[in-house]
């Protein structure tokens, strides 16, 4: 705090924001425990805690359910929420467009193309075999295919990004590349057998449950590195809020910054799409929710907050998608949109400060 004349300058209201971040972290922890505790098999809460704290419990089946199914699933939910939200935040800032999200550059579409290539085109017998052996979500084959598809589009986009000066042009090119990729998948589907299409469609529903403990290690490393890298880009993202011209006049290397921002977003979005399928909505909605709640555009606050809000939203959706107390599991992709959209509409109408962010 500094006094200037009669006006107190509270050097950006950081204290308040840190308080909100602590609250968000507590909420995340609570939902995490709920998500692990709830499911189609009822497990007493004391046993859930014991298992999480590494103590043995009498019922080995329960222990296995918690450690091998629920825990990886909940952690995947947090990672997916965090990664997609961070990706969306960066795209919205880079393109200064409220409709941008991590899928805007066609990375998700590219990943879908990779998966479609494996499921629809390659010898149906072999893929069907491997998928059924390993389970659709948990197949390394699918993950590798998605990663390669996403990477292919990413390389194309990055190559184009070095040729183009204007971010708006870049955005349109990204959307068009996404459209081309989706069109290829459509044509592929048109000429495929119904069973193959069904498998592909199942994949597009998205799934948090398919990630095994081993894969989770890889996914956590990718997402943590991506989030950390984005946090280090906070200063760059902040100055980009004023637009490229101002940013350049303050000495920012626009092309290099854009390369890094697109690169890290693609990595995050590509990894999540590979491991969990194309999960929409979260990437667009969470940055808006976070900005709206915290009423700031400072990325040093927004990046950690988006990680937390993204994790919270994904955990909430996961809890709902498992329909507590029943055996049914809804596709996570449908739940994110169905639950999330009304929340976003409500908050944005109530706060009325969305438009001023851009």
């Amino acid at each position, binding site marked *: 705090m*500094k006094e*200037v004349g009669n006006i107190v*300058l509270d050097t950006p209201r950081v204290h308040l924001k840190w308080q909100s971040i602590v609250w968000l972290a507590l909420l995340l922890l609570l939902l995490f425990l709920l998500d692990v505790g709830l499911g189609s098999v009822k497990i007493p809460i004391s046993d859930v805690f014991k298992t999480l704290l590494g103590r043995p419990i009498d019922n080995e089946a329960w222990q296995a359910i918690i450690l091998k199914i629920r825990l990886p699933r909940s952690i995947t939910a947090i990672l997916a929420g965090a990664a997609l939200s961070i990706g969306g935040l960066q795209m919205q800032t880079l393109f200064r467009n409220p409709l941008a999200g991590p899928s805007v550059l066609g990375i998700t579409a590219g990943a879908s193309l990779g998966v479609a290539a494996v499921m629809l085109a390659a010898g149906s017998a072999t893929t069907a075999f491997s998928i059924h052996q390993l389970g659709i979500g948990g197949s390394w084959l699918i993950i590798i295919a998605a990663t390669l598809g996403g990477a292919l589009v990413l390389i194309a986009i990055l190559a184009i990004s070095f040729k183009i000066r204007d971010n708006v042009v870049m955005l349109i090119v990204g959307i068009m590349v996404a459209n081309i990729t989706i069109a290829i998948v459509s044509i592929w589907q048109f000429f495929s057998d119904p069973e193959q299409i069904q498998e592909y469609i199942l994949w597009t529903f998205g799934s948090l449950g398919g990630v095994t403990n081993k894969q989770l290690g890889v996914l956590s490393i990718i997402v943590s590195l991506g989030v950390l890298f984005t946090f280090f880009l906070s200063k760059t993202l*902040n100055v980009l809020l004023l637009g490229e011209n*101002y940013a*350049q006049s*303050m*000495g920012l290397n626009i092309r290099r910054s854009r390369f890094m921002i697109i690169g890290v977003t693609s990595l995050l979005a590509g990894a999540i799409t590979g491991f969990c399928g194309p999960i929409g909505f979260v990437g667009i909605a969470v940055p808006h929710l976070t900005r709206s709640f915290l009423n700031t555009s400072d990325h040093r606050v927004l990046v950690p907050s988006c990680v937390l809000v993204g994790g919270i939203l994904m955990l909430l959706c996961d809890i709902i998608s498992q329909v507590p107390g029943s055996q049914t599991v809804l596709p996570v992709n449908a739940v994110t949109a169905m639950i999330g959209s009304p929340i976003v509409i409500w908050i944005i109408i109530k706060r009325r400060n969305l438009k001023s962010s851009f």
Partner: protein
Amino acid sequence: MSDSKTILSTQNLAIGYKNKRTHKVVLSNLDLTLKTGELTCLLGPNGSGKSTLLRTIGGVQKPLGGEMRLGSVLLESVNSKELARMLSLVLTDRSAPGNLTGYALVSLGRFPYSSWMGNLDEKDEAQIHWAMDATGTTEFANTHVGELSDGEKQKVMIARALAQDTPIIFLDEPTAHLDLPNRIEIFHLLRELAVTSGKAILLSSHEMDMALTNADRLWLVTPEQTIITGVPEDLVINGSLEKSFARETLTFDYAVGSFKKESGVNRKGVYIQGPDILVKWTRNALERYGYGITTKETASIKINVSGELNSPEWRIDNQQITYKTIEQLLKEI
């Protein structure tokens, strides 16, 4: 004025656009000097190449020919990081994100100096406080930029440029979408900043009256697609200003220093007599309707204005009837 020195200069500069097929020269033969402690106004009609010039000498766009120097160093040899400490910009795009506070926005100006995470030290904060103080924006420190008026926002953007702590500031049409009081305020602010802080401030504008009143020096874009420079009054007197804004239907009023449109119809000459201020506004109205105002008492119509500013009376040709408003006068004349 005596201790001002040249901080930016160009020699035989040509600017424009170049790609494989076309080579479009916008302005050429530019020998310009920008001096510290002065408000320089780049004046020219819309579309005359003002923004192109600012982009070129701001190091954003490559020149077609000639050389530019920052002090004694060639501009092309200065990298963007060094340039960011020499030159700051205030641009036309109204792009400030609404949910940054005034303070946060101004602090973005410290980008070239702050640590890699953008944390500010005491020197940064002192500079930000000075910038907000100098522009009278301290009261907006905790206000979100989206809640400010256009004029207030522009002042915050100027504060951001000041926070960048550069000896040169360029402003591209800083008063373009502001109302008159705000325009006057911004021009005054810039002039004062130039004088008190010793910065070289260059702004582009098409508003002649503002430039004539406030600028220490004009860079005037001429119809020959070059720029002549000088003290505003000199350029008025030698007719350069009239030439550069010339339109067939406009005439330059040397007494007022602005252009006026000649009405198509030519009516009779009128002689107006009375207190100066009332004569001025009567004349203004009559000229709009195509009357020629003469200084000869023998004119075919003679109008007498009398009374105070808030209770004037008009009389035509010494008739008995008096008119209380110009509206009545115009009906009868």
